[in-house]
């Protein structure tokens, strides 16, 4: 492997990892606070990418339409998330876990079918937006600028989330509810509101990832399950409920996938799974997770 191809794969892997991080972070935050495994998280991502595509098409002539889409699409997804939390999840928090799993599983079916009804089964693409078209030369190589932008987004969102959770009043409430729901409730925190807020935040992150990825890839049905499986691998590697775990896990999986694709394209999908199995054997609770 030459240095050029090595650097190229590393870049592709990291940018993929950073997008995955956005999704896995949402999944992880939702699980940490609500104790709900949202199987429909990939569906929220897919919904975000379809919304992004829709906005860019609807505002085809408008300058900066992509950035409007990045603003609007995640908000739409967050709103859908809010509706899901208030009307569907809230009535069953007291029920057994199995019903929550299956409910979110049902949402996978509903969202996928709804997307199919609205946008059809074809592939859609979104152009690389201004001002990130083209490439930039580094180490004698040319890197697509948009990928560099994606790579920058990862740490940015990571730091923003850390600040939100550790430094703000809202974050204090989230941590209080995560730590002890009853006690937080007794001390006057509006727990249902925090739940809704956290679910919407998670959905917003999935929507953000969904609107940032299309310029590099395509918008299509089926990405929901592919993405949610990748996120599962990430949280198994990193530990569910840990933001840092999601970051590290996403980075590792992104790099593994990119190099796997380069070395043995036919078995690329297997690399992530093998990685997950290895982690399960040597460190069953994930790299950053704590024993249950």
């Amino acid at each position, binding site marked *: 492997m030459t240095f050029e191809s090595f650097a190229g794969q590393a870049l592709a892997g990291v940018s993929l990892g950073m997008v995955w991080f956005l999704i896995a972070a949402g999944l992880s935050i939702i699980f940490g606070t609500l104790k709900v495994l949202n199987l429909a998280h990939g569906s929220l991502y897919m919904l975000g990418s379809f919304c992004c595509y829709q906005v860019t098409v609807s505002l085809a002539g408008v300058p900066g339409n992509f950035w409007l889409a990045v603003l609007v699409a995640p908000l739409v997804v967050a709103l859908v998330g809010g509706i899901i939390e208030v009307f569907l999840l809230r009535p069953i928090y007291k029920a057994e876990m199995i019903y929550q799993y299956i409910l979110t599983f*049902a949402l996978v079916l509903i969202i996928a079918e709804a997307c199919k*009804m609205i946008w059809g089964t074809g592939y859609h693409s979104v152009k690389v937006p201004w001002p990130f078209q083209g490439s930039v030369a580094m180490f004698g190589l040319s890197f697509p600028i948009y990928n560099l932008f994606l790579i920058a987004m990862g740490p940015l969102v990571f730091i923003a989330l850390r600040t939100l959770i550790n430094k703000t009043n809202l974050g204090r409430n989230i941590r209080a509810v995560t730590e002890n729901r009853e006690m937080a409730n007794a001390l006057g925190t509006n727990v249902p509101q925090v739940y809704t807020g956290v679910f919407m935040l998670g959905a917003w992150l999935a929507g953000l990832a969904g609107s940032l990825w299309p310029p590099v890839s395509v918008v299509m049905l089926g990405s929901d399950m592919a993405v949610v499986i990748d996120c599962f691998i990430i949280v198994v590697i990193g530990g569910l409920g840990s933001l840092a775990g999601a970051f590290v896990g996403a980075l590792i999986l992104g790099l593994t996938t990119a190099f796997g694709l380069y070395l043995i394209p036919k078995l690329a999908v297997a690399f992530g799974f093998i990685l997950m199995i290895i982690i399960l054997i040597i460190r069953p609770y994930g790299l950053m997770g704590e024993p249950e």
Partner: protein
Amino acid sequence: MTGAGMNRISLLGTSPRNGTMLLGVMIVMVALPYLLGQSWLSITTEMLILALSASALNIMLGYTGMVSFGPAGMYAVGAYTTGVLMEKMGWGMLPATLAAPVMAGLVGALVGWFCVRRSAVYFALLTLAFSQIIWTVVFQWYSVTGGDDGLVSVPVPDFFFEITNCYYFMLAVVSVCLFIIWKIVNSPFGMTLQAIRENPNRVEFIGVNVKRYQLASFVISSVFLGIAGSMFCVFSGSAFPDYAYWVKSADMLVICLLGGIYNFFGPLVGTVVYTVLTKVISGYTMHWHLVLGGIIVLIILAMRKGVVGTLANYWANRKSAAA
């Protein structure tokens, strides 16, 4: 929780009335080829196999409290074992169908060993991940599985081309399997599984190796899923990657849920309700999944015990009101 648990277990008991009902159902099943047309008989045969797979899943889901999202993986292992052995290796039907549960059991032991290392939420997502691995293997291993074309010319004996023969064969296989599952879940071993469902910590404290029992439950479930897959391969003469896809797992989960997971007969009733619903609704709309998703949401919000559980509660209430 404990109160609900007691209720659940008592629902699983045998009574003379159940015995009479069971006999009645068996008589109707045997008489069905004389009552139904070819196409409905074919649908009923499919239903038998689906009922077996749902019951197999329910060993984990309802009896042990392990939410598996990957039963389709084991189902596909069974189907492809039979399919590949017959089509590519030229095995006879008997050894090929007997090999299916063995293979599914072995794969189930391997996958289960990883999955039971983690509990609850991780278990659920690991089962989904592993079933997707199986799907990927089936999809990519072109030389053996035929990739996305599947296996389409499994040389099934001519005997099965006559749908009535096929129906009776499946009825016999499924009845025997269900009887064995019934024996297993009502044995001391099955009671231990149910105790683990209610409270794994307490069961661990009284000296039971919970993980080992969960693994056993996983393997038994896989074996019967393998049989169901193998039977479907014989019935249809084909095997496709779709058998391992998560949508198939969703079907099985919904069937269990629809019928009621805390009752042996839940998955069976669920199969009938689900199949009839599919046939009726898909006659009206192309967007069957949307309706299906809506139905699941409704069941979970309004009728969490499923058809059988709700009816059983109704009867129990009426009885106690009369007494």
